[in-house]
């Protein structure tokens, strides 16, 4: 009798503990599934396909409207709008402009010289430039502390934008951007949460890019929406700077940080 009771008790204990453990395991499994980064192959492949079609462009014009957050002294995020326009002829011609109501700047590269011109103050600076657009962008960043607008358009598909740094990637779904149907993807890497909208069809170029600085407690965001015109032909004068009347030549400073590091 005693033996039976004890057996019964221990069986009851067994029965009651086993499901309890199973529940624990399920809960833990569920939690880790929710927090583990999902890295969908189709999202990575879509990014790579888009990057290839970007790199395949020889001549293009792209305009972009961008909204960029900046934190003010009172801790409020203020949104600033900019219009950026690029005219590009590979491998060594590039024109860019950025207009935002507070600044009106242009950038000229004709394969030999690089000129930065600010219309509002009417100053320009010209320096000798390297042989290709890629080298120019490197030099501007390293030597002069200038990160060109829409830099990713020139970096995707190069070794400067390796996909193995992407920790999370997933397809969100179709989305209308302007009048186009684009596919929306979400990515995460380091402190950057970003989303990309890619055009459908045989030329899958980016429709829109949104970046959240997740390493900043204020989480400032920038959003860029692109309009593409590919295969355009440009006049050589598009890329050659000629100083407007009363424009003044000034120095382009080397970035002090580049020297210090």
């Amino acid at each position, binding site marked *: 009798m005693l033996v039976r009771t004890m057996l019964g008790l221990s069986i009851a204990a067994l029965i009651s503990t086993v499901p309890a453990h199973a529940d624990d395991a399920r809960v833990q499994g569920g939690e880790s599934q929710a927090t583990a980064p999902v890295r969908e192959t189709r999202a990575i492949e879509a990014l790579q396909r888009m990057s290839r079609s970007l790199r395949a462009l020889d001549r293009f014009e792209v305009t972009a409207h*961008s909204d*960029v*957050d*900046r*934190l*003010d*002294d009172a801790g409020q*995020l*203020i949104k*600033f709008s*900019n219009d*950026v326009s690029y005219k590009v002829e590979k491998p060594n011609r590039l024109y860019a402009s*950025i207009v*935002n109501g*507070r*600044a*009106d*700047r242009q950038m000229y590269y004709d394969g030999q010289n690089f000129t*930065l011109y*600010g219309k*509002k*103050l009417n*100053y320009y600076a010209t320096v000798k430039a390297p042989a290709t657009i890629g080298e120019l962008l490197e030099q501007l*960043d390293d030597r*002069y*502390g*200038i*990160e*060109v*607008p*829409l*830099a*990713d358009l020139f*970096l995707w598909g190069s070794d*400067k*934008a390796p996909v193995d740094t992407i920790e999370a990637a997933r397809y969100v779904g179709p989305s209308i951007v302007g009048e186009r149907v684009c596919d929306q993807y979400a*990515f995460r*890497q380091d402190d*950057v949460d*970003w989303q990309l909208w890619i055009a459908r069809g045989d030329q899958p170029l980016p429709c829109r*890019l949104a*970046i959240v*600085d997740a*390493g*900043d*407690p*204020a989480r*400032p965001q*920038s959003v*860029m929406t692109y309009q593409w015109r590919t295969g355009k032909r440009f006049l050589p004068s598009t890329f050659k700077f000629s100083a407007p009347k009363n424009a*003044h*030549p*000034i*120095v*382009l*400073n080397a*970035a*002090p*940080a580049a020297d*210090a590091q």
Partner: protein
Amino acid sequence: MKRPLSSLALALLSVALIVPQAAQARDGQARTSVNRAGNHARNANVNANHNVNANRNVNSNRNVNRNVNVNRDVHVDVDHHGGGWYDDDDYHPLATAAAVTATVAVTSAVIGSITRTLPPSCVPVGVGGVTYQQCGSTWYQPQYAGTTVQYVVVNPPR
């Protein structure tokens, strides 16, 4: 009992050490590139240090207080500006009114000090292919730092 306490203290210490660094790494401006971290924060720190030194020099002269204020303003501006494409040509929309008026109120400036704005009534003068701004007896050399213009007080170039 001893061990958990000391490890807690260690954890607190490391948090205290790490958090301010993380906060300094960003300046509240959204990054505009996935693949480039941007250089606004990097430039800001270096320039700010220069300005601190300039203040010390000023103190041994006269005109002390006003110049110190001006330099501080530059410091503030530089913190927000690194010369990005999205910055302004001629003014900073988020700068406080006090900062702007103080900058305009400069009457004499120290060689090597940097400002974002010029006093009124300056004349551009070209010397050796480069433009200077002569403002009374003070000469400024405008230069691009990144894509924004700053003015460095220089000795008369001629």
